[in-house]
């Protein structure tokens, strides 16, 4: 009798496990790429990345000489700044949270509203934005030409010591392409290590991908957990986001912002384009039922319900995407 019950329980568990597995997307969909992509117009080289790293940490790229790219994209803050709104953004209308630059080699649309399509084009924007580095590129080129220590770096990267705007942006873009998330427990699970993530995280993966549950995967897809696309997620912010960059009749793009990656999230936030939320439980609560039900709201966002356990499972899964801080040694500044 006991044996029969045992067989019955094992059979039930096997069937349940098969069903559970069948509903999951194939793990290959989340497999990390083997190499870093770079455009033909700016092949990735160690020399360019080395120059770019120096420029990235150099505060002399700002007009005041007090702000570097790394000031807001800090290695200690997951290559963001940990702030709700960026430095000097007080009083700036529709200011947006500083996004991470990790894994930016794979981005096809940059900035929250996608107004830059390459890292090279994007590199100009913070340097020239008034409330950020507030400089102009002609003056920057002139300033760098006065720094003897940059000459050998430019020579190694480009063959001669000529300094111009294109070389500066190509070097900055090259360095940022080398900033790739460390492998996370989830990556080891994708590679076949069944013990790499907890059972709770595995259950959370189901909640994450289930169309009848959180269905986060509708937008947070691919190995980077972003679709590089634009959605209005129903925040109260008045910022039009992508909507200001496309014809006004494209209702769906009003208040739409680029989907951020879920890798290497700071556990305390801030989250969302306006930095308005802290803590993943707050984010889940928003998606469950608090999104502004306006016409532009993404059609992929539907109200859903989760139990306390499922919410904890979902958070455990998101934490399994954290490969830990990507630390690098800050370079010596050329004189």
């Amino acid at each position, binding site marked *: 009798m006991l044996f029969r019950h045992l067989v019955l329980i094992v059979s039930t568990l096997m069937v349940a496990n098969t069903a559970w597995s069948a509903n999951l997307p194939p793990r290959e969909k989340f497999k990390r790429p083997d190499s870093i992509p770079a455009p033909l117009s700016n092949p990735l080289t160690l020399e360019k990345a080395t120059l770019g790293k120096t420029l990235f940490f150099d505060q002399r790229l700002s007009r005041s000489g007090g702000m570097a790219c790394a000031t807001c994209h800090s290695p200690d803050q997951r290559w963001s700044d940990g702030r709700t709104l960026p430095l000097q953004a007080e009083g700036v209308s529709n200011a947006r949270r500083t996004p991470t630059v990790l894994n930016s080699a794979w981005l*096809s*649309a940059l900035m929250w509203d*996608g107004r830059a399509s390459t890292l090279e084009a994007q590199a100009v924007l913070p340097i020239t934005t008034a409330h950020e580095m507030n400089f102009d590129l002609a003056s920057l080129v002139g300033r760098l030409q006065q720094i003897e220590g940059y000459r050998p770096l430019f020579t190694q990267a480009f063959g001669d010591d000529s300094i111009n705007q294109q070389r500066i942006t190509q070097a900055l873009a090259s360095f940022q392409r080398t900033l790739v998330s460390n492998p996370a427990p989830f990556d080891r699970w994708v590679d076949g290590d069944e013990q790499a993530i907890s059972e709770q995280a595995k259950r959370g993966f189901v909640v994450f991908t289930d*169309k009848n549950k959180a269905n986060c995967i*509708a*937008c947070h*897809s691919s190995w980077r957990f972003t*679709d*590089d*696309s*634009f*959605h209005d997620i129903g925040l109260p912010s008045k910022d039009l986001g992508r909507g200001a960059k*496309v*014809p006004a*009749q*494209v209702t*769906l*793009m009003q208040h*739409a912002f680029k989907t951020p990656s879920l890798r290497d999230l700071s556990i305390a936030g801030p989250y969302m384009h306006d930095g308005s939320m802290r803590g993943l439980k707050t984010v889940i609560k928003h998606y469950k039922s608090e999104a502004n039900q306006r016409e532009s709201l*993404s*059609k*992929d966002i539907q109200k859903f319900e989760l139990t306390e356990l499922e919410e904890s499972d979902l958070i455990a899964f998101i934490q399994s995407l954290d490969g830990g801080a990507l630390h690098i040694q800050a370079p010596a500044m050329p004189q």
Partner: protein
Amino acid sequence: MMVKKQMKMQMPVVKTILVTNRSVMNISRKLSAWIGMYALLVLLALYLASCSVTSHAPLARNASDTPASHTMTLSDHEFAPVNFVPRPGDTITIRNRSDISHSIYVTYPDGTMVNLGVQTPGTTVHWQVPADATGEFVLQCWIHPIIRANLLVNVANMSPSAAKSVLPKFTRQEILDGRQNICSSRNRRA
């Protein structure tokens, strides 16, 4: 004696008649040759004329032809490969076979943008190729900029006279490169 004289007198006449007959035959032969040549030229001209009109048939739509229907499929973040050549007036149905919503728009060669609306999973939208379409039409998604399909529409609905006025010239190299079928090649390029 008289007969002999008469014969002597008739001889040049006969000779003249014989010579005249030969000339007539020569002229006739030459005329036949010219007529033959002319007929050949006419036939060649007719052939070329027919080539310029009838060879359009596979590409140009006759008045009696009905517009075709084509289907494009959206997977998660891409269009499935397109296996048809759209023509003016055709209807293209876009099926969303993904689990996410899309919002496709078409950019015309002159920059005009046509929105096809929001497309939730499992639904279809339609776009009719304009009757005067020619050039490249680009289909993209507002939500997912990575989604893109380029459709080349080749117009072949011009009258022969109109077509003649825009026939491009072909270099020898173009012909050697495989454009021997000048009629259809011209048509495709028009």
